[in-house]
């Protein structure tokens, strides 16, 4: 069993099976594309982001985190009408950050997960908007009220989703 020691605290490292590694992000992107058609409010959620955070925190590997984020983000980008890379860059940063924090913090309890998801959602949006405006020149509107509301909604959904994904993860 691979164990990482940080500040004298024992942190367990998990992994996901190959089917779960492929199918969960695919299902997340699929549901993200399909559900808003039936439940319009669902577009405030970002399931691929939640999966990125969940995978990164469980694996606790910066390399795995950033590549997972990049691949999921690029896949999500490919379904939009925008240039490919906006979600890719944002989720790469989030994947790296979540795995880095996963090494240092106990991310097994619901409170920490809620807070981390909230923070990472905002980080994701800030990176996204910065790149979209600064590089691509897209006129994106930013409202703190909306972004914080979405962050909170995603954080609550994230806590539930992480609990479900915990059942699929295996100790290394």
């Amino acid at each position: 069993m691979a164990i990482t020691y940080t500040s004298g605290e024992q942190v367990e490292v998990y992994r996901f099976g190959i089917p779960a590694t492929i199918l969960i992000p695919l299902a997340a992107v699929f549901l993200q594309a399909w559900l808003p058609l039936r439940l319009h409010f669902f577009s405030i959620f970002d399931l691929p982001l939640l999966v990125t955070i969940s995978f990164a925190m469980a694996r606790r590997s910066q390399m795995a985190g950033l590549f997972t984020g990049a691949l999921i983000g690029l896949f999500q980008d490919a379904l939009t009408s925008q240039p490919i890379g906006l979600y890719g860059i944002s989720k790469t940063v989030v994947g790296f950050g979540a795995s880095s924090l996963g090494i240092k913090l106990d991310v097994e309890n619901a409170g920490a997960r809620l807070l981390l998801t909230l923070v990472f959602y905002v980080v994701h949006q800030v990176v996204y908007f910065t790149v979209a405006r600064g590089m691509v020149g897209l006129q994106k509107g930013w409202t703190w009220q909306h972004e914080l509301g979405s962050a909170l909604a995603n954080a609550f959904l994230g806590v539930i989703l992480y609990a479900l994904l915990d059942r699929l993860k295996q100790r290394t």
Partner: protein
Amino acid sequence: MESVLGRYRNLIVLVGVLFIQVLGLAVQVRRSTDTDSSRLIRVWAVTAISPFEKVLVWVQTSTGNLWHNYFYLRGVRAENRELKQQIEQMRIEQVRMSQDADQARRLQALLAFKEQFISQTKAAQVIGSSGSEQSRSIYIDKGENAGIKPDMAVITADGVVGKVLHVYRSTSLVLLINDQSSGVGAILEKSRLQGILRGTASGEIGMEKVMSDEQVAAGEVVLTSGGDRIFPKGLPLGRVTRVAPGSDLFLNIEVKPAANLSKLEEVLVVTKIDERQATPDQTGPVRAADILAERLPTVPPKPPDAGAGGSPTTVEAPGTGTAPRPVQAKPKSAAPTPGVAGSLPVASKPTPSPTGDNVTEKPAAGSATVKASPKTEKPVEAPTPPPAQDSPQ
């Protein structure tokens, strides 16, 4: 050196991955007109997702159809009755509007106007969305195989939905009009002010480039102007909900979309638009009287002793040699006009009554005699005063 690289290996990889993506973005932004630079990734992603979406939509539609067609029939009869009434009303309205349209066509022909007509559409089902608030777009289940091409207009019966952005083999990506990168040439129906309809960050739409000294009323209908060469002129875009003074001498006009963009299930892709010069209709306007005339036997000249409205009208049976026998025409619809019920309105000009129905006014020149239709060659004696609700058949 090696220790430094080993220590910052993860960070270096992060910077490298980000750099590659930024480079890719830069290439796409530079070639904004070239959609092929990222096409391969898009095709892979769409190919991976769209089959599942199609299956799910098919299951949902089939289940819904089963429910609606077999189980949920409560109230259908009442609804049918209401729809029939609506059809009657709309027929009357159509006759009136066709006269206006014909007049407009004649005027357009005089001015050598060119009109755009939607001559071909392709129905498509919405199977997915981009799933992002930042990109408001949908996927439809028709692509290259069905003759869909980029920049084709996508509409519903209610109004404009958007335009085709990317086309794949059996699916297409449609950019909705409430996306921030979308722009549609728009015109206000009454004031005829032109502007550009754009999506906002919150998913609403607004009309831009209308000067602040212009008068725009809330509730005014916004139509396509046809200036963008994508959407034919005159399609409903929405209705003005709020007007406020904006920056840079322009008004802030909020518009509620005519089509329900959040609940799209089926759409029409305009695959062919004809542009032709308007020509006046040689056959003249189609009047209610003309429709009646096709269904009724020939009317001979009135005998001197024939009474006014309400008296029976004689009908000559062509080729039979029999004496004319009286027939009483029935009114077209539910117009409570006793005078009409007894007279034959075939040769009269229909004018809308206060109830919305057509009422005979006076006989039109040259139309005193109409030929009998093949169905009514034999002389028929109509029953005495028919019920007002009957149709003329």
